[in-house]
């Protein structure tokens, strides 16, 4: 399979000179199994460019097929959908998978996609769209690929995905806070909770269970893509935002025995030079710790060939 990054940024797109090397588009990763339709993870603004590229292939003639796995529906993970050109061509088939909500998934996307926020309602899309609600831990087949998922530690929760195909595995873990200090759910926290107060035992147990599931999901993966929006210091100021940092990502990668770790969901204000420095620093830390995995930092246009490519 081939893995290509179309959007690597978190929270909000950041155009500009200081972000042009890593890219300013929000989360979108394309997985292309050999000879099979693309499996796309997240529909941030990077999806717009991917859509244009796909229109050069079967999608341009209305013969395209794609599956989109949504980690969660925060704007930075869905904003590209209304700008995904294949949706505007009859004959294309787009399947959208996301964790179930209280409201039907299609209703959630319709709200995002319709008046007064966007001029073209979802119901006017020419392509055939279908919505598939997933439970946490869902496991299913997509063509020759096997998809597995588990819950992440993020406000209103998010799903991590593992895609196994062509004798390789890629795991996408974004967005998530570390599984150590707080359990994020439906409650809104105005300010950062204290990280020093002891947690109730049931929360500690739940976090430990979630972390073990993430490690199990990533076990032996060829590539682990991980939310590292924060540095460790930044995380301590905003743990309730539901994002992690490279120290935590390295620990997960180590426990899961992955082959490559890719830092992802870069903070909007992180300049290209900042990202370079973070990558150099954590390559050094991984080397000093004797880690056998390679550390990468995601940038727009990065393409990796895994397994039978």
């Amino acid at each position, binding site marked *: 399979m081939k893995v290509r990054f179309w959007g690597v940024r978190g929270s909000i797109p950041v155009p500009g000179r200081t972000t042009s090397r890593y890219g300013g588009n929000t989360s979108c990763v394309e997985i292309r199994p050999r000879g099979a339709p693309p499996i796309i993870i997240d529909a941030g603004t990077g999806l717009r460019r991917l859509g244009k590229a796909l229109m050069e292939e079967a999608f341009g003639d209305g013969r395209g097929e794609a599956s989109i796995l949504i980690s969660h529906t925060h704007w930075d993970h869905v904003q590209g959908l209304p700008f995904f050109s294949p949706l505007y061509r009859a004959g294309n088939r787009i399947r959208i998978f996301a964790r179930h909500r209280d409201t039907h998934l299609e209703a959630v996307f319709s709200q995002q996609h319709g008046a*007064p*926020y966007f001029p073209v309602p979802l119901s006017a899309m020419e392509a055939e769209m279908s919505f598939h609600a997933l439970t946490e831990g869902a496991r299913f087949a997509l063509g020759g690929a096997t998809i597995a998922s588990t819950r992440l530690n993020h406000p209103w929760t998010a799903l991590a995905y593992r895609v196994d195909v062509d004798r390789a595995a890629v795991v996408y873990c974004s967005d998530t806070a570390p599984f150590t200090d707080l359990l994020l759910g439906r409650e809104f926290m105005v300010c950062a909770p204290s990280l020093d107060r002891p947690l109730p035992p049931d929360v500690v147990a739940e976090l430990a269970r979630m972390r073990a599931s993430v490690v199990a999901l990533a076990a032996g993966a060829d590539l682990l893509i991980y939310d590292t929006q924060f540095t460790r210091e930044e995380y301590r100021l905003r743990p309730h935002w*539901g994002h992690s940092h490279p120290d935590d990502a390295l620990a997960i990668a180590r426990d899961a025995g992955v082959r490559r770790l890719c830092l992802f969901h870069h903070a909007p204000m992180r300049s290209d030079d900042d990202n370079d420095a973070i990558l150099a620093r954590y390559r050094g830390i991984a080397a000093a710790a004797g880690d056998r995995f390679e550390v990468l930092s995601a940038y727009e246009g990065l393409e990796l060939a895994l397994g039978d490519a």
Partner: protein
Amino acid sequence: MKIRFWGVRGSIPAPGPETIRYGGNTSCVSVHTRSGGLVIIDMGTGLMHLGDELLAGPFGAGAGSATILLSHAHWDHIQGLGFFGPVFVPGNSFAVWGPGGSSEVLEEILEGQMDPNFSPLQTLKNFSARFDVQAMRLGVPLTAEGLTITAREHPHGATTALAFRITERGEPGEPGEASRTFVYASDVGQPTAGGPDPDAVAFYRGADVLLHDATYLPADQATRRNRGFSSYEDAAAAAVAAGVGRLVTFHYDQDYSDDDVDELVAGCRRALDGRGGAAIGLVPAREGDELEI
């Protein structure tokens, strides 16, 4: 007044090396008045960067206030709100005026953006600053920040968008005591290829600066007329008909590279000259640029 461009792009932010010169952030313009007032027009992604700058002043200490004018609630005009630092500082206050016809409807629309399915903020009530949302009444002048502001509803595809006419009175006795007028008219639909709407022209009449939707090159507009945007031809025609001092091109299509926008600006200059508007100054909106009236 001093006008500054924080986001000049239409529809969706367009990051990338090919948009660096004009900028890829969506609509946001600030107007600083001579007496220290601040008006912010539209809350696209450019708003985040304006917010970062404001935090260095009174807004960082919870002592800031501003008036926000919202043209309409398409994403590219509201997306920056959740990332606007000053709303998270207690003590700041914002008066938001926008479309919707009633304050309840407008508030509901802005709440919808913060819906927990889409935003970790969950609700506007989680802002720490005062954030008063009110519907702009068409044709009724609003006095804010020492300015007189009137709104007009323009067609915009299947919906409408508000344009704003902002006038600052001159100081009596000083040279140039005459008032100064800035008109913001983004997302202006041109349903037919005819000339500019006479009512719109009357609204723009005599403005020192007219900022006008110039999303498209004419050839692209021809195939996308239903989307409710103007071409540079439409912008030039409106500027000449209204006899404005300067025209600002704005809201460039997300697919246009800097070179495409250069072409759009050159075309607009030719269109002004060709219509007898050689005396009208042309200012292409560029992220970070400032314009003084």
